[in-house]
């Protein structure tokens, strides 16, 4: 027979005011299997805990019920105490007679009776509790960072500086991401490239960082501490070891009229190219779609002029497999386009703004390239259509964002600030120009942000018009902006030379495909979901995968860098031990009963269930069964409720424990 100890707490008067704690303790003594019961003023105090520890040895207890507050409050306290007394901590249960009883009832008789029943239920439960040991999983101390923008670079540098190996994968030929495209940054107006490129170089030169540019994650297997990641290194057609980055190939390439996406197609590049002069690595890549050699088999000029003989037309995509312990996803964002969207798409374009067909209606990133000193115009702000300097410029905020009718209801967070920055840059470069901004509200929380915004109005002469724009249309070489000024209650029309739309921040196209490979969840817009909006904002629900930057939601640079460092800290925490230890509330398969229907696998939200073969000593297959990877299992127990033969069982919440509790009714 069990030897259970029941400890009833008065909680000062919090419990004893409405529950006759002594009677509860006396009643507990009569429950079968109870060997000791007592009550005490403050069970969680040191003397209270000592009472419990003493009773464990004196009465040789094999289970404990503490009838006190919610387990959410003190379960850990009492489990620790039991552990100290030599009793497995998982043989301790809390009977919640405070939050669920004394505080919510007034009648002492009723509350006492209820408290007694609660205690009985927990006594029956604890009899069925098993000793559990924390689970340990080996950890490979190498991190994978997906995305080489500022988020990925920051996370990579932090982890690498801590002495761990990092594999950084970037889809484009160069790392740098969006930050490399920006001109100046708010709220300090320092040059983006000036602060970004040193970090890029640091990342490339760091002995602990392996850089895979022009590469993509192909497949992810495994679980926290033990991922196997397949990376596709796309054929660059240039041998990275041989190339010296001299740039002769680019200069001699006859195909020079290819719009450069890095410059938002404002500038041109050759078929063999680096996206921008400060690219890291500074090794060109051949754009096979536009290369004459790949199109017609003729040309080959770049190969001929390359001194070290680095150009290699025969290169093929390469698949490499890396063992990884933790993954930071930092895939960033892209900007919404106002172009027509496919029929049936939840997200709509802007026909009223000309569906992107008016050449001098541009988005914020295009303006960044125009304003950038290293951009296609050398920092001169001109109209894409005719190269004239715009004298009247209109900025429109919240294009796509906060527009439920267009399919996006969220705020893109960065536009208010960068638009304010744009008005300043414009004013600095076009002294006789006038900037107008149509806005809903100015959202400027952040250090120095509101001051910055006010500066754009008060010192840089931007005219802010509170209201929406209903239509943009061309009139001669002007663009008529029809809008409303709701402060004055009037219609406004401005004949502008150029219009800059602050379009919404969206996840990368195909973000959901990467999420599916990683087994992480994403929201209706395809932003990746954090495990908890407030308390676990950088972790995914899938253990071992962390988020950094705008792939999780719109973010500015400081926030992105903070989150990247936070993700790095999480990774470093994981890497701080050789083995990962976690609560043993995980599911286990009873292999004898398992018939491999894999209902558990079908419902597991974590992908923790694997197929396992059981073989005899000769190696003959006896049967296939389910196996729950304890490193991955989240402990929800959906598998057990679904298993027809109850051959998978969640430790800590076994059928035995639950049935015993129900039967105590």
């Amino acid at each position, binding site marked *: 027979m069990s030897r259970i100890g029941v400890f009833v707490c008065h909680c000062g008067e919090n419990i004893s005011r409405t529950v006759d704690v002594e009677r509860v303790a006396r009643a507990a003594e009569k429950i079968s299997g109870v060997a000791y019961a007592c009550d005490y003023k403050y069970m969680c105090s040191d003397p209270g805990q000592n009472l419990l520890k003493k009773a464990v040895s004196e009465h040789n207890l094999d289970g404990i019920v503490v009838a006190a507050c919610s387990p959410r409050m003190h379960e850990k306290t009492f489990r620790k105490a039991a552990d100290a007394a030599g009793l497995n901590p998982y043989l301790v249960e809390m009977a919640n007679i405070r939050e669920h009883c004394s505080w919510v009832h007034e009648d002492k008789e009723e509350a006492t009776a209820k408290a007694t029943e609660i205690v009985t239920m927990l006594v029956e439960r604890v009899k069925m509790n098993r000793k559990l040991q924390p689970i340990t999983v080996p950890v490979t101390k190498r991190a994978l960072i997906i995305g080489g923008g500022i988020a990925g670079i920051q996370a990579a540098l932090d982890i690498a500086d801590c002495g761990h190996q990092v594999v950084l994968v970037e889809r484009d030929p160069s790392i740098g991401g969006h930050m490399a495209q920006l001109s100046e940054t708010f709220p300090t107006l320092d040059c983006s490239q000036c602060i970004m490129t040193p970090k890029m170089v640091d990342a490339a030169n760091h002995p602990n960082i392996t850089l895979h540019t022009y590469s993509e994650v192909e497949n992810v297997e495994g679980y926290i501490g033990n991922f196997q990641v397949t990376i596709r290194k796309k054929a660059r057609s240039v041998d990275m070891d041989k190339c010296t980055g001299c740039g002769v190939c680019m200069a001699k390439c006859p195909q020079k009229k290819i719009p450069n996406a890095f410059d938002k197609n404002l500038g041109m590049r050759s078929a063999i190219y680096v996206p921008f002069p400060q690219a890291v690595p500074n090794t060109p890549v051949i754009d096979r779609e536009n290369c004459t050699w790949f199109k017609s088999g003729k040309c080959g000029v770049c190969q001929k002029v390359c001194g070290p003989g680095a150009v290699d037309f025969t290169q093929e995509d390469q698949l490499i497999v890396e063992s990884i312990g933790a993954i930071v996803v930092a895939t960033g964002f892209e900007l919404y386009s106002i172009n*027509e969207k496919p029929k049936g798409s939840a997200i*709509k374009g*802007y*026909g*009223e703004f*000309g*569906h992107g067909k008016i050449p001098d209606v541009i988005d914020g990133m295009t303006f960044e390239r125009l304003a950038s000193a290293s951009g296609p115009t050398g920092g001169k702000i001109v109209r894409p259509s005719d190269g004239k300097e715009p004298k009247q410029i209109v900025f429109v905020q919240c294009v796509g964002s906060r527009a439920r*009718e267009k399919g996006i209801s969220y705020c893109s967070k960065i536009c208010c600030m960068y638009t304010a920055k744009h008005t300043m840059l414009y004013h600095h470069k076009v002294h006789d120009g006038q900037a107008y901004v149509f806005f809903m509200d100015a959202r400027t929380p952040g250090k120095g942000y509101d001051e910055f915004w006010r500066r754009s109005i008060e010192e840089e002469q931007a005219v802010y018009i509170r209201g929406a724009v209903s*239509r943009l*249309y*061309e*009139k001669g070489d002007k663009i*008529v902006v*029809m809008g409303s000024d709701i402060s004055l209650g009037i219609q406004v029309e401005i004949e502008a030379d150029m219009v800059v739309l602050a379009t919404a921040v969206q996840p990368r196209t195909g973000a959901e495909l990467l999420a599916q490979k990683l087994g992480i969840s994403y929201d209706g817009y395809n932003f990746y979901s954090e495990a908890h909006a407030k308390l676990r904002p950088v972790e995914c629900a899938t253990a071992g995968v962390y988020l950094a930057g705008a792939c999780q939601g719109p973010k500015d640079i400081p926030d992105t860098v903070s989150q990247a460092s936070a993700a790095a800290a999480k990774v470093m925490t994981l890497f701080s031990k050789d083995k990962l230890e976690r609560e043993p509330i995980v599911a286990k398969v009873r292999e004898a009963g398992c018939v491999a229907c894999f209902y558990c696998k079908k419902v597991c939200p974590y992908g923790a269930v694997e197929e396992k073969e059981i073989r005899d000593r000769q190696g003959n297959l006896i049967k296939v069964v389910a196996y729950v990877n304890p490193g991955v299992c989240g402990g929800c127990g959906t598998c057990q409720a679904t298993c027809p033969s109850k051959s998978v069982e969640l430790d800590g919440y076994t059928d035995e424990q639950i049935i015993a509790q129900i039967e105590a009714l």
Partner: protein
Amino acid sequence: MPTKNLLNYSYYPGCSLHASGKEYDESTKELFKSLRIGLKEVPDWICCGATPAHNVDELLSLSLCAKNLELSEQVEGDLAVACAACFSRLKTAQHKLEESDEKRKQVAYALDAELAIDKPVKHLLEILAKDYGLERLGEAVKNPLAGLKVACYYGCLLTRPADVPQLDCAEAPTIMERVITAAGAEAVSWSHRLECCGANFTLSRPGVVINLSGQILESARRAGADCIMVACPLCHANLDIRQKEIEEAGDTIYNLPVLYMTQLLALATGAAPSKLGFDSMIVSPLPLLKEKNLL
């Protein structure tokens, strides 16, 4: 008796088409006759409630439309609607009633009948461009409107709000342009195709109308249009009847005929011009049509 018609519709003309927009009704009938599309008017139809009812009493506005839809069940074929305002009201009512059980119950109570509101409601444009088809329409053209530069004016109701009428893209539609080019005319590209003409204020605040409709006329002229084509009797009233006032206020002369889409198409398909009501327009289109050798 077997019908000779290629398609058949029930027809809701709406109040305007029996009054100030008579030419729209007449030309519609002529056009459909020449295309062999049957139109049978819904018996006993009532006002759709446009434009003020929905601002004042939602239940009334929904009930009026629900009643009309119920009445339309007596006649076979999808419901053809000419007036953009009627079209908008009927579509909006269907949309709102579909979405809300509560409203459906209220309207059923108000009408004291089971709701019968599922009949597809189609604007004439939709019938011509989709059901009948542009190719067939092109084939039916006997008198191509060659050389006529037309500014297609949608007004604010025909395509909006985005998910309700589903006639075409709400903000950048092309259906009118596609229809009129099928008849041989040239559609000009202009800015004010979807701007409001001020119809709601036509009696209460004519100043607003003069401003808004003035911009529309201005934009059409700037684009080099010979005339404006409309699909709504209210727009027509503002642009045609008030054109003189607008000219006076702006100290300019537009002399831009405002024609119903059906007038132009009927003309192209060979209907007798005398039956199309050209002579009852305030800004006479006859000189223009003669100049272009279309009469």
